C-alpha cells in the first residue's frame, strides 16, 4: 500500500492534511515538515491506522 499525504486547500486558504497508510508515529514524522511550513492554518486528520497502532502500543505497555 502506497503511503501518501492528501492536502486540501480550500478557497479561503484553509488546509486539511490527511496521512494515508501510515502507522503510528510515522505519519507525524511525514507530516511534521509540512505542518511547520504551513503553520497553525493546517488541520491534521489522523486515519484509523494511527489509533490502531497506538492502542497496540498501549496494550504492550500495560
Amino acid at each position: 500500500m502506497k503511503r501518501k499525504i492528501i492536502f486540501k486547500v480550500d478557497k479561503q486558504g484553509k488546509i486539511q492534511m490527511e496521512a494515508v497508510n501510515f502507522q503510528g508515529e510515522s505519519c507525524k514524522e511525514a507530516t511534521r515538515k509540512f505542518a511547520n511550513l504551513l503553520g497553525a492554518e493546517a488541520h491534521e486528520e489522523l486515519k484509523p491506522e494511527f489509533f490502531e497502532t497506538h492502542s497496540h502500543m498501549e496494550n504492550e505497555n500495560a
Partner: protein
Amino acid sequence: MSHVVVLNLEIKSLEAVKRLCQNLGWEFLENKQEYTWYGRWVGDYNASDAAIQNGITPDQLGKCDHAIHVPGVTYELGLKRKGDQYVLLWDFWDSQLKEVMGGSSGARFLQEYGKACVTLEAEQQGYSWQEKRLEDGTYEIEVETF
C-alpha cells in the same frame, strides 16, 4: 483613500511566494523596497486588519523588503520582514488588486500560498505529487511519500 491591510498569514517561505507568483503570472520584484499604493495615509481605515493596527506606522506605509506586481494592476503587494517571517501588505482601495486577491481578506493569495508551500515542500523531500481542482474550487494535492 488608503486601505492598507496586513494579510492574516505568517509567510515562512519566500520560495513559496515566488512559486505562487510563477503559477499566477505575477512578478516577484526581489529587493524592491516600495510597493505602489494610494501614496499617503489619510486615516480613513482603522479596522483590525489595517496595517496601522498591526505595528506599521504611517511613515512605513508603502515600504517593504520585496514587492509583487500583478500585470494590468496598478497597486502592488509588499512583503515586509518581521523576525524570521514576512507579512504581506497591500492597499485594497485598488479594486483590480482586490479582485485578483480574492477580496479584502486576500483569500486567493492564502489558497495559492498554501498550494505553493505543499508542492514545494513535497519536491524538496523528493516526493511526487498530483493536483486536481475540486468542484468547489478546493485544490486537492496528493503527495506520494516513500
